[in-house]
């Protein structure tokens, strides 16, 4: 434990940096330079705080740590309540890690309105960290939804040719999902009388209402995740966003959905989660197989990685809703690992795009000859994405599938084919870009990674290998919280069964199962 409000500090630091950047005056060039440095140092300091928090985190308990609790809306009993447990810990670290990476990645690529760009990223960082540490549902919603503003601007101002379409699609899609979440939160508040997340978990609502609330929460998180069939905003947003926007989108924003399932859906609506589990499994399996097949035929590198993200997130939802230790740990691990790997893969695309200004796979080839360091980095990341043992990708997929096999053999078998398909499309991408003939003069003349880019890639690639070989670095700290989550889930199921029997007819299972199977 620490004796200063470390979580609030992590929220405030990027905001202070953003305010400071607002006040920078001078000619365009010096403003841009100062803004970049301010943003970078702020992000690095935040990362240092996050690492300090990680070091001080007590892995032996499932309780919330570093808790801060102040009155916010006293009249409505809504509080400023922050805290971290094993489930949220690594998402906070991931957000703090990827922000400086993003700022560094945009160092030379962003030429116009650098000041605003840096402000947007710092605000985004506050919102992301806030989403993961908020222990009040309203506070959570504020951060969860507040992400839309900077992200809309990032895609819309610094994006590609179809940026306006992509920005609107991203914004309206996610907004539609989350307003339903808002209504569900308000209903919960009305039913339980508080928006405090630990209290809400301890007092699950009963019966049919739980089903409705689950559906509303699911709408928000499934869009954010994104799950098939509401994933269509993701390829557009990824393709049009600037490199760093894609990194943060794939690295952190997608994880908000998974985190929401773990923090809200599973512990608060255990009966509904169990009831809809099959439905989620089948959506996940469809996502894994269908989007893998779609990824297989993409000509655009970013689109390919975007579709692969949907497939990888399929493993996450599959793991989470098995409600087994292996499945949930696998889901969390897969999210962390995917955050690093897909973030880094988008950086890989960014490196190529900076040099040749195209993402078309066919325009590259034989890069191993002129860019050997790049080829090595790309290979490790590619293998991580495929899930090769020894990389972090393996642990997540393996554990998720292990959980799935314990619950539903058929689903697990089908999902496993996704691993094979994943290898197919990633190897195809790697072969076409890195190996083969050097067909194009300009591509053959591209310089290898420079120092700045190496600084970006080496830590990420090292992380992929380190947590791949020592997964317990993460799993040990996640473990107690996952155990408690499953305990709450099962306790909720039992009490739900009792009340269901007492007031017969209240809890009538009916729903979309037939339609899906």
């Amino acid at each position: 434990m620490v004796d200063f409000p470390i979580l609030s500090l992590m929220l405030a630091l990027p905001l202070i940096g953003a305010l400071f950047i607002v006040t920078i005056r001078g000619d365009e060039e010096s403003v841009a330079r100062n803004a970049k440095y301010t943003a970078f140092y702020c992000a690095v300091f935040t990362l240092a705080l996050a690492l300090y928090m990680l070091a001080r985190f007590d892995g032996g308990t499932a309780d919330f740590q570093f808790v801060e609790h102040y009155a916010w809306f006293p009249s409505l009993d809504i509080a400023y309540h922050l805290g971290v447990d094993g489930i949220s810990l690594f998402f906070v670290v991931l957000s703090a890690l990827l922000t400086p990476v993003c700022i560094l990645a945009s160092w030379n690529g962003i030429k116009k309105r650098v000041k605003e760009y840096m402000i947007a990223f710092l605000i985004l960082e506050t919102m992301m960290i806030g989403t993961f540490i908020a222990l009040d549902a309203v506070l959570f919603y504020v951060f969860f939804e507040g992400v839309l503003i900077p992200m809309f601007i990032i895609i819309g101002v610094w994006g590609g040719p179809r940026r306006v379409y992509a920005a609107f699609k991203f914004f309206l899609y996610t907004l539609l999902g989350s307003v339903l979440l808002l209504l569900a939160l308000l209903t919960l508040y009305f039913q339980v009388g508080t928006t405090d997340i630990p209290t809400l978990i301890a007092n699950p609502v009963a019966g049919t209402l739980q089903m409705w609330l689950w559906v509303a929460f699911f709408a928000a998180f499934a869009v954010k995740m994104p799950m098939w069939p509401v994933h269509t905003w993701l390829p557009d947003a990824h393709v049009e966003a600037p490199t760093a926007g894609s990194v943060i989108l794939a690295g952190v924003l997608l994880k908000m959905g998974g985190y929401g399932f773990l923090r809200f859906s599973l512990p608060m609506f255990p009966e509904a989660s169990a009831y809809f589990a099959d439905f989620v499994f089948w959506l996940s399996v469809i996502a894994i197989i269908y989007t893998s097949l779609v990824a297989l035929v993409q000509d655009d590198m970013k689109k390919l990685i975007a579709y692969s993200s949907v497939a990888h997130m399929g493993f996450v939802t599959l793991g989470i809703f098995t409600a087994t230790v292996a499945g949930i740990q696998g889901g969390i691990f897969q999210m962390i690992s995917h955050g690093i790997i897909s973030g880094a893969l988008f950086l890989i695309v960014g490196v190529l795009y900076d040099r040749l200004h195209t993402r078309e796979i066919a325009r590259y080839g034989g890069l191993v000859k002129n860019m050997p360091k790049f080829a090595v980095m790309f290979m490790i990341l590619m293998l991580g994405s495929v899930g090769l043992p020894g990389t972090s990708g393996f642990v997540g997929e393996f554990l998720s599938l292990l959980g799935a096999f314990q619950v539903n053999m058929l689903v697990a078998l089908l999902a496993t084919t996704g691993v094979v398909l994943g290898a197919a499309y990633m190897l195809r991408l790697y072969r076409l870009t890195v190996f083969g003939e050097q067909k194009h003069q300009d591509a053959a003349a591209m310089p290898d990674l420079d120092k700045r880019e190496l600084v970006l890639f080496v830590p990420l690639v090292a992380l992929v290998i380190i947590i791949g070989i020592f997964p317990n670095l993460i799993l040990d700290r996640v473990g107690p919280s996952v155990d408690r989550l499953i305990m709450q889930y099962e306790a909720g199921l039992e009490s739900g069964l009792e009340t269901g029997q007492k007031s017969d007819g209240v809890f009538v299972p009916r729903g979309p199962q037939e339609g899906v199977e």
Partner: protein
Amino acid sequence: MSELSLAYIMPALPEIFLALASMALLICGVLMGNRQTFTLGWLTVITLAVAGLLVLGLDWTRTVTFNGLFVIDGFTAYVKMFVILGLIASLAMSIRYLYQEQMARFEYPVLVMLAGLGMMIMISSNHMLTLYLGLELQSLALYVLAAIRRNHARAAEAGIKYFILGALASGMLLFGMSLVYGFGGALGFEAIAAHLDGLESVPAGLVVGLVFILVGMAFKISAVPFHMWTPDVYQGAPTSVTALFAIVPKLAGMAILIRLLFEPFGALTADWQQIIWVLAAGSMIVGAFAGLVQGNIKRLLAYSSIGNMGYALIGVVAATQSAIGATLVYMIIYMVMTAGAFAALLMLRRDGRGISDIADFSGLSKTNPVLAYALAAIMFSMSGIPPLAGFFGKFLIFQAAVASGFYVLAVIGVLTSVVAAYYYLKIIKVMFFDEPQESCDKIAAFSKRIVLLCAILFIMLFIFWPDVLIETSVAAASSLFVAG
């Protein structure tokens, strides 16, 4: 208490002061002529500020005076304070504009003050006739203001349209009052409430009267389906007048609507809830969908105001003390956002002319970055995205709806807010994502900047101290419920 003692007229002191001051200022205006509009305008601002202090200085416990015609309590004081603030803001930011548009006539500030006086009387009314008196004083002043640029075809059209439709609504209101009088035998709010409480079954004529009164009031706050005048009047009137229309009369109208529903017609809650339900749902839907196709920012803000009235009415439907508090908070937040938006709009001029086509905003973030960011913050806030103030208004409203079990209304509300988000985003898109046109005029606009700055600070910082406004609003609403 029939003799004319000081205690008898004290509660109406701010109104009496304003009435006398407006006469005095009118005479000054006649003597000094149109050249002194600037001085007169600022004098009016000061007078309004003094009236505001008088409102603050009065005892806010419930007092009924003038033989039951006039009432003050915490609710009226609260609403009057914000009405006066809104009047000050909208007048202060339009004085220079009057000169820019060559319509600096001395009547302008005096008419604004008379409209304000009408609103304050209306807010304090405790009798149907006081209500009608205040409403008409307000409306007549506003009709003239809408058409003050009389050699301008659109402004004249706006004035005529507003007048004819407004007169129609006033007629309906009067008809409703006469029905209520005929079937209920009273016009005073307490007397009507007492009569209704004593009835076993409510005569149909009384309900019809209530419906007509609601129609008249719905017109004044531009709730669907009585909103037709709003876009045309907003577009046709000079922008400074549109700002006034958008900021103040809605709040006053909403306040008296709430008092009408809860004091005289409190016994008919189940009846009027259905009517307000339809008005709220219709306003939200029309406000969201009709706004999508607008190319003129003033028309767009008109539809936005229609939609926002719909949200505010949700709190009225929910009909609890905290729900009315939520409606008040929503109205205040909406008022501040609108004031900010119009301050920015009044500042945007190109080649000496105000711009109001959304397409003219393109690339504003490059040519006038400060204004563009301010407008963007206001637009995000209007679409209800946290952490800005607009979100908390919607949050409280939906919370009230859910707590009273109006789930369908809440679902319509959140869905239309997504639709409406599209047109707010469209403005941001034009300002930030499109290529810039020639730059706008740089004008030193002190008062507009102050208004804009205050609005932006309010929008951004509301999240840190939300309880200040919420608690005062709920306290203001409580005076209605204690009395009822």
